[in-house]
């Protein structure tokens, strides 16, 4: 077998013009396969990093996944609200270290508006348990102060001092809270999480813009000018959800039970990890379909390889006869073709990985900015190794076909090929 490896390599190099295109096709299919896999992981990591500091998410009783998606990722349907009294009660629970109340529903030019407390800037964690950083300006203090996520500021060209008005609800034609504009006082550093796309205001501000509203529309005949809102009690009546941090993670199930059995109103506490695993179950079908399509593209690439190698066999009859004459066995001829297939698939797979790395380096920052997905250029992960090994195994299997043809050919031809 050893002499065959060198011969196979040089034979393939001799046909590099036709083979390089099929290797490129394999490389691109591997790029797609690994790219899909990496996006999948980036998506999961992105979701998990968005709640890295939270021990529990508490909201009105309903679907845990829906609460999680809405409160943390601003996705999907709005949920029922929970009373402010419940929030203060939870904050006093001995096991609770901090609470971040979250009030959602309004928007600014498509970006969600989140009402919260200064605890948000202190306790919210993302990524590898990193705290939020203010890139420009300061956290909100006044009722009509707003702090923008990095992407909001960048997309709309805002900086501290800019004045913005919020819209009630999320749609394009949502009525505006035009009488009570907000002033941008700070811009957060980029996090790669939904925080980047969020406009943050205080709960008092959220309450103020809805003073003269009822049921999603301004109350006819009443209009409270911005300068008078401080005369009202701006303590919120309700919030969407509360993000809880515990003094010790060990208490998480005890606190969850406490919340689920809350007397004043029906609440639930969701473990972010558990809710996410529900999400992955839902998304699993889509992921598998995407992976199947990518695998099919790899099969197409390998079919191209087999076709090119099969087509070359007739020109190589003489070459195979010479090898037989100097002592190669028909099995050796089969081996020669399989080694060739292995080598080409290996080169294709490696090239695909190199392309992936190059692409992550080149387009990674853009993807992270646009989609909030971090696609780092790393060495292959275990699952990527498994995919690469699968591709290479498929390549070897596929090259058994030309190998078998060459085997039959060399048995029939002997030393005198019929050409």
């Amino acid at each position: 077998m050893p002499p065959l490896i060198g011969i196979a390599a040089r034979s393939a190099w001799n046909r590099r013009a036709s083979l390089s295109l099929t290797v490129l096709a394999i490389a691109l299919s591997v790029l797609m396969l690994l790219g899909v896999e990496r996006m999948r992981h980036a998506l999961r990591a992105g979701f998990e990093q968005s709640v890295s500091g939270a021990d529990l998410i508490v909201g009105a009783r309903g679907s845990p996944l829906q609460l999680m998606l809405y409160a943390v990722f601003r996705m999907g349907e709005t949920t029922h609200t929970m009373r402010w009294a419940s929030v203060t009660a939870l904050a006093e629970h001995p096991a609770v270290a901090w609470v971040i109340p979250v009030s959602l529903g309004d928007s600014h030019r498509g970006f969600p508006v989140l009402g919260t407390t200064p605890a948000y800037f202190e306790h919210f964690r993302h990524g590898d348990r990193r705290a939020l950083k203010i890139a420009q300006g300061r956290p909100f203090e006044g009722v009509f102060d707003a702090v923008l996520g990095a992407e909001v500021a960048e997309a709309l060209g805002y900086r501290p001092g800019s004045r913005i008005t919020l819209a009630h609800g999320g749609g394009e034609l949502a009525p505006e809270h035009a009488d009570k504009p907000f002033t941008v006082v700070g811009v957060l550093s980029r996090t790669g999480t939904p925080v980047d796309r969020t406009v943050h205001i205080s709960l008092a501000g959220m309450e103020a813009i809805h003073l003269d509203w009822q049921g999603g529309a301004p109350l006819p005949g009443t209009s409270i000018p911005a300068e008078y809102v401080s005369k009202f009690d701006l303590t919120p009546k309700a919030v969407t959800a509360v993000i809880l941090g515990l003094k010790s993670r060990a208490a998480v199930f005890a606190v969850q039970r406490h919340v689920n059995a809350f007397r004043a109103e029906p609440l639930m506490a969701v473990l972010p990890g558990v809710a996410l695993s529900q999400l992955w179950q839902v998304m699993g079908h889509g992921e598998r379909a995407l992976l199947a399509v990518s695998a099919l593209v790899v099969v197409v690439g390998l079919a191209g390889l087999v076709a090119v190698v099969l087509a070359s066999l007739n020109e190589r009859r003489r070459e195979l006869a010479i090898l037989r004459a100097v002592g190669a066995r028909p099995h050796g001829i089969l081996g020669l073709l399989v080694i060739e297939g292995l080598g080409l698939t290996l080169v294709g797979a490696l090239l695909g990985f190199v392309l992936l790395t190059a692409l992550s380096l080149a387009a990674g920052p853009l993807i992270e900015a646009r989609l909030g997905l971090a696609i780092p250029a790393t060495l292959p992960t275990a699952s990527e190794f498994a995919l690469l090994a699968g591709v290479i195994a498929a390549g070897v299997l596929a090259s058994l076909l030309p190998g078998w043809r060459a085997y039959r050919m060399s048995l029939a031809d002997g030393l005198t090929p019929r050409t």
Partner: protein
Amino acid sequence: MAAPVIHIADLVFRWGGTPCLDIASFHLKAGEKAFLHGPSGSGKSTLLNLLAGVLVPAAGELAVLGQALPRLAGAARDRFRADHVGIVFQQFNLIPYLSVLDNVLLPCRFSKLRQERAGDPNAAAARLLAHLDLERTLWGRRADALSVGQQQRVAAARALIGHPELVIADEPTSALDAERQAAFLELLIRECDDAGSALLFVSHDRRLASRFDRVLALPDINRAGERPS
């Protein structure tokens, strides 16, 4: 004395039922140079494939160096060929993408015995190439960069490396002009003598026959040829 290099007795080979080779007796002694001529279609390439152990006769005795080839399994016949037989074809003898030197060294890569007998294979190849008038500057070139005459001499070097007991040459000079035919034959016989190899030279061109120990016509020894189908 050792067994003859080739021993054939009552050998029959059939191709799709009709015998195309039927030889009562043929022997080649160690170091003997035999010239076998016959028109194309007289069974030359079939005989070549039989002697190389690629084909197996339907009946009769076929032994090379005393080893009955039909008794060996396919893989063993392949190893036997690699160990003991050097072959020169009519043309396109070389793997085009390998260098001249690598082409000569091929038998040593497939046969440990040939490698051992060659001593230092690189030195043996260099010696053969030099003896066959191939300049050192050509050795590193791709085989298909050489002229046809040069390629045939490289093929001869490959057939001879590691001193195989039998060299089979199948019309090795037909692609050469008359002047170079004689020169090639001269070199081939000299190197076979040097290596102690018996030579079975198959050709349809009788003008080359004078330099051989023995001259045979395949139609004369092939009884199948007497009954054209």
